[in-house]
């Protein structure tokens, strides 16, 4: 980090906090604070929806995903546009007409209080823990790459977000989302330009694309019907549809974004714009990762992209073995570079037989270098068994820190902080709304004035922010429990989605039937979790299906 980078980063963080406080204003009524007075235009709604979903991990991990596994991850998003259509057509007019603040409030109008309270509490548990991870995950990566104490990065993100979210509520969240989205776009575009300029003089952009393609990294579509493969066209369309329907239709952190639209039309247009832009955006981020891969076919990459782990192994008793493997890796990488250039020569000649032969030799060289890298990872784990063998999350930021010029590095780091703050601010805002509207105002103090609820909402935002920061500080000590918290979301999403689908589409099902069905669905998901080896990605489908079918069966006996 050079002085110019520090200047850019600190200036941006200070500016965004001041801007959020300024644009958030001082709302005195609860609709102004929690729904931005329902005055947002569709462009702001759209950017706010996209910024909420795209956390810092999206921008740090997705390019690494393309580097390691190719671009097929883009298929995961294919169900999203279809979910946007369903939500725009069904949920948005209902929510607007009923003038609800939260999605769970709608469930009381449709069913009863107990169903509303159950879903609101499930959301608070799940999203409260997730907010801590939203801060922790990018903080860990930034601290490792930059050599900062993780408590500093957690404190910076947490404090900045709490200040403007508590001060300005939803208006501050939505307004800052627009500016933060702009700097993220600028940071990613600048990185792409630098990446292209960093390619060797004799390797053009098209050459880089061709090499990435021949290495199998541009595999955007896989139409196979292999159910064991997580990312295919069909799993993306079907599984991605259910996941997006759950997230955008029932998660208050997203519902609150489009409820701030001034009309049904503005909310719908915001969602549909997301449906148009999300897939190309993810494609662009993955393509950036594929280009980082191409870059490292002509420039030697680090043997392991997590610098903290390589530094630790060099100080351990495994240091001599690791040094020997590093020397072998340099040789293997040099061989791979030579094969990559041969492949380019063959492609330029247009001789298909020569291309096939060169591609075979290039892939063989790639497999050799990966085998040496695999041996290095084993040594890292031998030295420190608790070390994470995956360095995918560090690939992109490692390139950024190593190759971006002064100023642009600060810009890119500001973009990473911006992405983290975007998701966190929306989560805290939604947690505060649900706490105030579905719990405090509904169950504890129903008849207070607007100013009281606004003050309580600010206090709830600060409290949830403090909880998220505390959980983020503690998350590093949880080890495997961090993964368990990720699974936690899937334990509840299916049940909540099932309740909402019944509410929207099965008009004859009543409150008691759906409440019992939700308990049955949740029990089924927890049983799958405890007693079977079913992948947690299927919990959404199982929970949702059990709730819908149970509701239908129970409603025949008891409406």
């Amino acid at each position, binding site marked *: 980090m050079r002085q110019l980078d520090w200047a850019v980063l600190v200036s941006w963080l200070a500016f965004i906090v001041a801007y959020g406080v300024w644009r958030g204003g001082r709302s005195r009524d609860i609709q102004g604070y929690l729904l931005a007075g*329902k*005055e947002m235009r569709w462009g702001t709604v759209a950017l706010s929806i996209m910024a909420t979903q795209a956390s810092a991990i999206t921008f740090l991990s997705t390019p690494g995903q393309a580097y390691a596994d190719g671009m097929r991850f*883009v298929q995961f998003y*294919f169900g999203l*546009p*279809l979910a*946007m*259509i369903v939500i*725009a*057509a069904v949920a948005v*007019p209902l929510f*607007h*007409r*009923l*003038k609800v603040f939260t999605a769970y409030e709608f469930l009381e*109008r449709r069913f009863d209080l107990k169903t509303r309270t159950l879903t609101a509490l499930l959301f608070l548990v799940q999203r409260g823990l997730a907010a801590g991870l939203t801060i922790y995950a990018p903080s860990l990566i930034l601290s490792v790459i930059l050599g900062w104490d993780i408590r500093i990065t957690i404190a910076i993100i947490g404090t900045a977000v709490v200040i403007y979210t508590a001060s300005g509520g939803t208006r501050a969240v939505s307004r800052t989302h627009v500016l933060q989205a702009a700097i993220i776009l600028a940071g990613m575009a600048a990185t792409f330009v630098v990446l292209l300029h960093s390619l060797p003089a004799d390797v053009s952009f098209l050459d880089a*694309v*061709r090499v*990435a*393609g*021949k290495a*199998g990294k*541009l*595999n*955007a*579509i896989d*139409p196979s019907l292999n159910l064991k493969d997580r990312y295919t*066209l069909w799993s993306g369309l079907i599984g991605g549809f259910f996941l997006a329907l759950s997230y955008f239709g029932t998660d208050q952190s997203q519902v609150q974004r489009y409820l701030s639209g*001034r*009309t*049904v*039309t503005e909310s*719908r*247009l915001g969602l*549909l714009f997301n*449906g*148009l832009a999300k*897939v*190309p955006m993810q*494609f662009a981020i993955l393509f950036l990762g594929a280009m980082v891969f191409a870059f490292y076919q002509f420039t030697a990459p680090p043997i392991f992209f997590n610098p903290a782990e390589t530094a630790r192994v060099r100080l351990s008793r495994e240091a001599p073995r690791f040094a020997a493997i590093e020397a072998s890796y340099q040789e293997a990488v040099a061989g791979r570079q030579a094969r990559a250039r041969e492949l380019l020569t063959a492609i330029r000649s247009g001789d298909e037989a020569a291309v096939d032969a060169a591609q075979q030799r290039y892939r063989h060289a790639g497999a050799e270098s990966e085998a040496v890298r695999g041996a290095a990872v084993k040594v890292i784990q031998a030295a420190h068994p608790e070390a994470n063998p995956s360095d995918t999350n560090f690939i992109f930021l490692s390139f950024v820190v190593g190759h971006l010029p002064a100023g642009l590095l600060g810009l890119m780091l500001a973009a990473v902080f911006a992405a983290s703050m975007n998701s966190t601010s929306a989560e805290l805002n939604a947690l505060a709304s649900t706490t105030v509207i579905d719990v405090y105002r509904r169950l504890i103090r129903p008849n207070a004035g607007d100013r009281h609820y606004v003050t309580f909402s600010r206090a709830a935002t600060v409290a949830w922010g403090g909880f998220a920061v505390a959980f983020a500080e503690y998350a590093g000590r949880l080890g495997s429990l961090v993964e368990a918290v990720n699974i936690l979301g899937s334990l509840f999403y299916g049940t909540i989605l099932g309740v909402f689908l019944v509410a929207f589409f099965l008009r004859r099902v009543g409150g008691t039937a759906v409440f019992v069905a939700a308990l049955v669905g949740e029990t089924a998901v927890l049983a799958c979790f405890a007693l079977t080896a079913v992948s947690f990605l299927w919990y959404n489908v199982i929970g949702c299906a059990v709730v819908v079918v149970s509701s239908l069966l129970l409603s025949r006996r008891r409406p």
Partner: protein
Amino acid sequence: MSEPAAPGIRGDEEAPPVGGSWKVLYIGVAANLAILILLFYVFTKAFE
């Protein structure tokens, strides 16, 4: 479910600013997805 619309809410069936009807916009979003999938497939095949 039959409450009057909130101030500023001009009703569910207001036509969108482009396309003439919401149905056309929904079809447009679905068609955009279909075109993207087709383009990505061509992209995959062109460089594999």
